[in-house]
């Protein structure tokens, strides 16, 4: 339709049906293809903005020096992805940022990364990460500023491939 002609009423009805049903189908596909590790509310996943909702809130202490005093900290809740995450962290531009990986399998990370071997769900609950769709251990991360306030938190089951987003959010502090 270039707009040069006035379409008939029948054409208008067909356009309406095609458009509404096509977009309805896209909506159904987008819902059906969400992964088990996603947030039950997709709007809360990777929102890309600091201080959303109730944030900032004080970050609970997970261990001595976690979160790190006097500087930003990124706490990754790695679940079973800890080995892949640790392999990628060396190449990410998080200089000057304390990096913590919460895992249950005792994975080894680089020397600059603190690994906490603890219950992923308990730690994630303490940091207020939302539940994932299947109720399993959350995979995601929280960003804590130099004053010990949680400024950003999200589930992200694909975090290993999206670490540049973490850098962007840390840069926004």
């Amino acid at each position, binding site marked *: *339709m270039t707009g040069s002609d*006035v*379409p008939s009423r029948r054409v208008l009805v067909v356009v309406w049906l095609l458009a*509404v049903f096509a977009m*309805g189908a896209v*909506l159904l596909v*987008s819902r059906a293809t969400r992964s088990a590790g996603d947030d039950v509310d997709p709007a809360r996943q990777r929102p890309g*903005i600091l201080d959303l909702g109730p944030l900032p809130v004080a970050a609970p202490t997970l261990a001595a020096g976690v979160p790190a005093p006097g500087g930003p900290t990124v706490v990754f809740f790695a679940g079973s992805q800890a080995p892949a995450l640790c392999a990628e962290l060396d190449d990410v531009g998080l200089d000057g940022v304390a990096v913590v990986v919460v895992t249950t399998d005792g994975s080894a990370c680089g020397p600059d990364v603190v690994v906490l071997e603890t219950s992923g769900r308990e730690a994630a609950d303490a940091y207020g990460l939302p539940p994932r769709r299947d109720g399993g251990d959350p995979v995601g991360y929280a960003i804590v500023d130099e004053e010990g306030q949680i400024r950003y938190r999200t589930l992200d089951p694909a975090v290993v491939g*999206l670490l540049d987003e973490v850098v962007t959010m840390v*840069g926004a502090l």
Partner: protein
Amino acid sequence: MSARRPAGALRTCLWCAAVVVVELLLYASYRSHDARFHWLTHFLVGAFTALVAMAAWVWFRRRPAPYPLVWVVAAHLFAMVPDFLFQAGVAHEWWMDLFLLHIRSHFVPGRNLAWLVLFGLALTAHLVVVDRRARPAGSAPLVPT
């Protein structure tokens, strides 16, 4: 007639194909599996805005809006500007709601289903206005009653 209609249909198909390609590229610009939610929100918000704008155009100009699919894509692109900035390393901020409620649009009750309903209503309104107000090119001006 026989030569003009196929040409018009071809032109329409080319526009539709171009729009589909652009939308596929926009979708691909989002990464990871949860991107469908974000793409769909901004598409529906952009389409809603474009349909309302086109309805106003038809109401006042009494002609169908030219290239309606281009209006939709343009509005979608405008709504996505903060996501382009994000890919360039700029985190979202609340002022980015200037781009068709880029942030708040995700948090409406009902989420994308609500936007689908609004899209359907805006499409209905636009098509009704086209049906009732638009006149063929070259037709005599109407005398106001």
